[in-house]
């Protein structure tokens, strides 16, 4: 799941639900910790990570999107 929310840090402000360009948080309820309903539609753009006032979101880069580097 690309966007991972730290439930301890999240204050359910809803900023991520408001701004997500692909609406992966569709169906999340106001004042509740958001749900990542459509993880496969995450563009990995980092908007929610960047705009979260609680620093509670982290992107787990999908396995098929891991960069290929030399050791």
């Amino acid at each position, binding site marked *: 799941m690309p966007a991972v929310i730290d439930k301890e840090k999240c204050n359910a402000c809803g900023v991520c639900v408001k701004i997500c360009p692909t609406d992966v948080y569709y169906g999340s309820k106001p004042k509740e910790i958001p749900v990542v309903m459509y993880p496969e*539609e995450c563009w990995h753009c980092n908007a929610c990570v960047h705009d979260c006032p609680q620093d509670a979101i982290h992107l787990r880069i999908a396995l*098929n999107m891991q960069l290929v580097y030399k050791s």
Partner: protein
Amino acid sequence: MNDARLNVEQVEADVLCIGGGPAGLCAAIRASEQSAKVVVIDKSHTLRSGDAGMGNDHFMCHIPDVQGELPGFFNKIGKMSQAVTKTFWENAYDLVKLWDSWGIPMKYEGRYEFAGHSIPGYPNFMLHFSGQNTKVKLTKQAKKAGAKIINRVMILDLIHDNGTIAGAIGFDVRNPKLLVFKTKAVILATGKCMRLFPQNTGSLFNTSTSPVNTGDGRAMAYRAGCELTDMELNDRWSGPKYFARNGRGSWTGVFRDPNGIQIDPGNEMPAHFYPELHENYQKSGRGPLYMDLSDISDEDYEYMKHFLIHEANTPILDFFKEEGVDPREHPFEFMTYGLITPGGINYNEKCETPLAGLFAAGDEFMSFYIAGAAVFGSIAGESAAAFAAQAKPLDEKRAQIPVVTAKELLESVLNRTDGATWQEANNAIQQVMADYCGLIRSETLLTAGLEHLRRLKKKVPQVLMAQNQHELMRCVEVLNLFDIGEITFVAARERKETRQYHRRTDFPFENPIIGAQTLAVKKENGQPVPKWIMKA
């Protein structure tokens, strides 16, 4: 069988901007300044939607005080008509100053900086700016100017009134609502067309620019009778392997092969201008090719990182950080992504389209990137406001407002419980595009592929299903892609030559006579029909 019903709501305004990216927002600002009542629609949220959502770092322009006078240099840089090109270069610097005044940092350390995305030996025309919050600033400015922004609404089709475009019909992508917009002018600014061709990256949403830009503006303009041009002249980009992201011109390292030998494509052009280099190396067995940052100084590395952040590449930088890997010590691979569609609505220097009341800007035809969105967005706003000021209100009796058709289509998709998901339909169109209208094209392939596509296209509206408004949006995106796909096939079959990535095995050479013309496709009797027109 579900029983979803959409409630109908009406919105009235002078000017409707479809798409809340830099073009749509600049249009809204300028039109509002001309006293027009403006509504901006975005199917995401204007703060972070689209390609510019998390930033951009290069703005094409000519600043004579910095670059000097360059007579004749710029009038050849641009893919659109000469009048459009001239208008762009004459206005871009004004937009730089305007954006700077709105709080978008157009200067770096107090000076205009031209760097990156450039060709050594030529004047650099890419202004390096720090645009991570461009959309935040433009949203604020649009609201300040008086524009109303309605987020999470997708437009389905345009409304005609006696040959003039006078509004649009759309739906809320979170709530069961159908919206009818009655306006005097419409500006299309929905951006690019992704997800038509596979990007070779393992998933539908792993795309170098926003995966939810699906040619919606092109498709609705075409359905309303507007011609689309250059649809067969596809392009390709390259970037980090497996993590599709634009910004290759912001990476300041060099490409090296597995033995550490620097790769030069054979002339003075830097390798990042050759997107197929990576694929060709891979195919030859000599690959992979690596982006190698080992030679750059600490100062240059910090500079590069600054602009990569503003070029929306933070998740890539974060990946290295979390992996505990310094990219200066670990060269990483680049790859060639799939085909994209730069062609589209060939708007003129006033952003007019062939349809009265319909204007277009920005990446409805890809030419000048974010700077083009700024310049032509503003001009579209001005033109649309002027048109609206003299337009008559929409005639309810005469106008074609397809509420019933729209309701029927959308509700049938929402109520279907046995059918195809949007992903299934999207994969189907990508498959036929890649195999029959991809990098190998010929009369026989295009004919067979088009026949298959048309069979699918007929079935798709009858089988698509969506569990909610969100999936309904994805379904409508795919329906748009089927229109764009069919147009691409028709145009590719008509262009009997090889040009750029349009490679006809049966016509393997570029035809210089054809070069003076543009290929347009227009709907006639329900079918896309190609037509050659002389270049303006």
